[in-house]
């Protein structure tokens, strides 16, 4: 392995990390409030979860491909990659937010209402803290999946560690494939460790 490969590996790992971070930030920013909304509007649950479920079943390479011709969110490059990664990450976040909040003990919920908590106080002081471990677990799953899926972003010019993998496949070069796969796996392991630390900190109840 030469110095150039190391340098490129560092750069692509950084790119990959940013791709995942930005996608997850957007996915949480959309998924968490929508999940909360679903706890309040039961009628929306089936259509929205169904939509997120369908998204999940589209093969990732195909989803990236589908997005290319779409104006504004599509095209070639990072933006399209991020849109696709966000769509994939939504379901676990949405579902776990819903499950976590609906899982709050009925007696606790009834007490909170009977003590005269407002809807907002109930959400911030009771529902979200008690659902936090479940929500974190959802974000954890979404993050690990996104780290893997993000390697496909290279296929549509999104950059990241997939660049190595696609180049390695094209040139039948195992070193290149590993240079993409190993950092991606390490990134996944590190995030997993980070999340399990966060989950331990949250699990007071």
């Amino acid at each position, binding site marked *: 392995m030469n110095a150039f490969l190391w340098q490129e590996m560092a750069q692509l790992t950084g790119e990959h990390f940013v791709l995942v971070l930005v996608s997850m930030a957007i996915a949480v920013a959309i998924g968490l409030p929508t999940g909360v909304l679903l706890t309040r509007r039961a009628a929306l649950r089936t259509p929205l979860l169904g939509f997120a479920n369908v998204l999940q079943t589209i093969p990732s390479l195909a989803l990236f491909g589908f997005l290319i011709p779409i104006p504004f969110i599509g095209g070639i490059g990072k933006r399209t990659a991020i849109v696709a990664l966000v769509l994939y990450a939504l379901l676990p976040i949405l579902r776990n937010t819903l499950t976590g909040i609906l899982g709050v003990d*009925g*007696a606790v919920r009834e007490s909170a209402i*009977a*003590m*005269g908590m407002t809807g907002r106080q109930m959400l911030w002081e009771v529902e979200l803290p008690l659902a936090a471990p479940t929500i974190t677990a959802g974000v954890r799953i979404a993050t690990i999946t996104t780290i893997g899926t993000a390697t496909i972003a290279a296929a549509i010019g999104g950059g990241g560690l997939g660049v190595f993998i696609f180049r390695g496949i094209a040139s039948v070069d195992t070193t290149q494939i590993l240079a993409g796969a190993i950092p991606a796996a390490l990134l996944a392991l590190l995030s997993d460790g980070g999340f399990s630390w966060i989950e331990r900190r949250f699990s007071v*109840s």
Partner: protein
Amino acid sequence: MTAALEFRQVSYRIGGNLILDNLDLRLEPGRTLVLLGRSGSGKTTALKMLNGLLVPSAGQVLVEDRATTDWDLIELRRSIGYVIQEVGLFPHFTIAQNIGLVPRLKGWPPERIRARVSELLHQVGLDPAQFLERHPRQLSGGQRQRIGVARALAAEPKLLLFDEPFGALDPVTRAELQDQFLELRKRFQKTSIFVTHDVREALRLGTDIALLARGRLEVVATPAEFVKADTPEARAFLSTLE
């Protein structure tokens, strides 16, 4: 004398079922009314109307001469203590935070809340030094319900609601908490509504007993009168006293 609370021709219907049928009942301040009845008799439904957890399908429920539908519900609930069988303490709050909840919602200064919480722990027979910083999961069922009672009393409510609060406890702990209930009643003279299906508990704790059967009020009496009541449901309940 104005009534602390009053049910005026209150009915409650869910689906096709009539849960409460034309309930008329009033209670003077400072008294303890026990709502006695079997499961499904409508006693819990009646209780939950007082703090607006349920709204009558017909008729009016009045607290201090004002219909619950005319109250600001948040304000009303913060002035009513509520104790349920499952206790419902917040698992992620310490005991101090649990008891101090309503005072905090009402914006009491922290020092006043702290003093109040310690005072209440004493009153329910628990040592503040030992319990303040614990979490509910570290407590026994009886201790948890003591905290539940302390939480209900915290913000000096005008009315206390108890929904089978001691139903899940072992007989010894249950008797201890009943004793404590009587002691607190003597000390504070707070208007209380107490739901139970245990006639013994009703006779022991109530100043008044209202017997409900299938959503209808069958008997309203003091404990002394109640033991002589001669209606089918009253006889059924009294026959459990051997």
